Structures are given as structure tokens and as C-alpha cells.
């Protein structure tokens, strides 16, 4: 049995608490540690705000090859940085060699 976590600044994520997801408001200093802690504690999906994810690239990369947890970027309250879409493009590029699907 796994759980779902949401990480980010408080303003971006407090709404998810109402849906029954576990929210973890974090500052960027403790975020990396918290991410590893959540991954070890049996969270299957960790949603993380794009702003925070940008600071944790290295930590998130560790979970890319594992089935769980799935670390998924979501836009925060400050707006969309486009890094989530870039992630999709990156995996297409990795697989195909060049981005043939979304290059235009």
C-alpha cells in the first residue's frame, strides 16, 4: 500500500490536502532530504512543484530508473516554468535521438 505526497511551497500545495494527498511544505534547504525520506517511507507518487524540482535535479535523477516513486513536476502558484513539458521532450530525445514529436 503506497501513499501520494505533494512537495513544494505552502501556497502552491495546501489545496491538495483536501483531496487526501499528504502535503509537505518545505523550504529548499530541507527539500532534498525530505524527498529521500518520502521515497523511503513508501510514497508511490511524489508531486513536486517545478520551482522546487529545478533545485533538486540531482536528487530526482536518482529515482528516474526506478518504478516507484514516480516524481512528477506540477506547476506552482507562481506560474508555469515549462520544465515539466521539457521533461517529456527530454525523454523523447533520449529515446529517438531528436525530438520528432514536439519540436514545432
Amino acid at each position, binding site marked *: 500500500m503506497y501513499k501520494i505526497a505533494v512537495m513544494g511551497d505552502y501556497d502552491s500545495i495546501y*489545496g491538495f*490536502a483536501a*483531496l*487526501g494527498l499528504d502535503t509537505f511544505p518545505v523550504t529548499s534547504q530541507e527539500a532534498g532530504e525530505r524527498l529521500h525520506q518520502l521515497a523511503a517511507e513508501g510514497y508511490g507518487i511524489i508531486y513536486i512543484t517545478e520551482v522546487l524540482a529545478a533545485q533538486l535535479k540531482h536528487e530526482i535523477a536518482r529515482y528516474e530508473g526506478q518504478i516507484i516513486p514516480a516524481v512528477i513536476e506540477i506547476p506552482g502558484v507562481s506560474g508555469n516554468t515549462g520544465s515539466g513539458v521539457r521533461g517529456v521532450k527530454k525523454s523523447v530525445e533520449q*529515446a529517438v535521438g531528436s525530438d520528432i514529436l514536439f519540436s514545432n
Partner: protein
Amino acid sequence: MASTQITPTRMELTKTKKKLVTARRGHKLLKDKRDELMRQFLDLARENMALRQKVEAGILAANKNFVIARAGMDEATLHTALMAPKQQVSLEVGKKNVMSVNIPVFDTKTRTADANDIYSYGFAFTSSDLDGAVKSLADILPDMLRLAEVEKACQLMAAEIEKTRRRVNALEHVIIPQAQETIKYITMKLDENERSSQIRLMKVKDMMLEEAHHYSERA
């Protein structure tokens, strides 16, 4: 050239020929695997992008609603309202094997029987904007879960495709040409030995005939 270390024997030739057959077969299989993975990956990547755009738009809209809800209420009331959630979502993780890549299958369960039981507060002290905001976020949740599943599958498959592609290339451009080169080298060496022993035999025969019949003296 690698063939300098090869001992040109029949045994080595048979071995190398077998290796070549295996390499060809492996190459074909891996190529098929790569093509099929690629086909499925492209479908998945398209779905991933569509879902991501939908989810991002949904979350942005929900965030706007929350800002409006917040403007109409004081901070403390809002915090209290969302402090003790009624609903709890738990996750079952299954695995699906797609061309030897394990991709996750997420299945969610809500704690209360009614999945729409999301309002963790009484309606007396909160604005209706908050209800709308929570609802808009709840509506996007199924898509968010599907996004998590698809995006993870995309990442895993992309890594596997890259690995398979490297293997196919290694077989195609290194292993198979090397084996062919070795076979050619051994065959040539063996033929050469064959010819030289043939000549040697002819020479010996000539010498023996000469000794018996003394052709050169008669001429």
C-alpha cells in the same frame, strides 16, 4: 585488426561461424524489440504531453480559484478548514511488462466510499469560492494520477530504448563485422596452407619420379 591474435584453425573457424549466427539472430531480435518499444513509446509520449498540458492548465486554474478563495477569507479560517482532511487516497502499485520493461500501473483507493467526499470543513465559516477551488482541484486529480503513470512509463521506456539501441549498434557495427573479418582471415589462411601442401606434394612426386626414371638424362 583483431584477427592477428586469432589462431587460424578449423576449430576456431567453426566457433566464429557459430558466433556470427548468434550475433545475427540477436541483432534481428533486438532490432525488433527496439522498433516495437519505439512504436509504443511514441504513443505514450503523445499521451504524456496531452495529459501534462491538461493537468498544468487545470492546476493553474485551481490555483487561481484558491487565490480568490483566500482573498475572501482570513488566513486562520482557511488553514483551519483544510487542516484535518476527511479524505485519504492510497495507492496500489502494479507492474506491467511491456517488451521486458516493467512499467507501473497505479490504482487508487479513497478512504471514504464516496470519492467526492472532499470538503473537510463546515460550510458556515468558509466562502463558496473555497468549495469551487477544492472541486476544481479534485476534478484534475484522476488526470494527475494517469500523468504520473504515463510519465514514469515514458522515462523507463526511454532509458530502455537507448540501451537497446546501443546494443543493436554494437552488434551491427562491431561484433558482426569483426566475426566476418575473422572468418575471412581464417579461410584465407587455411586455403593458403592447403595450396602450399599441395605444391609440396607435387614437388615431392616430381622428385620421386625423377629418381626412378631419370627423365632429365633421357632428354
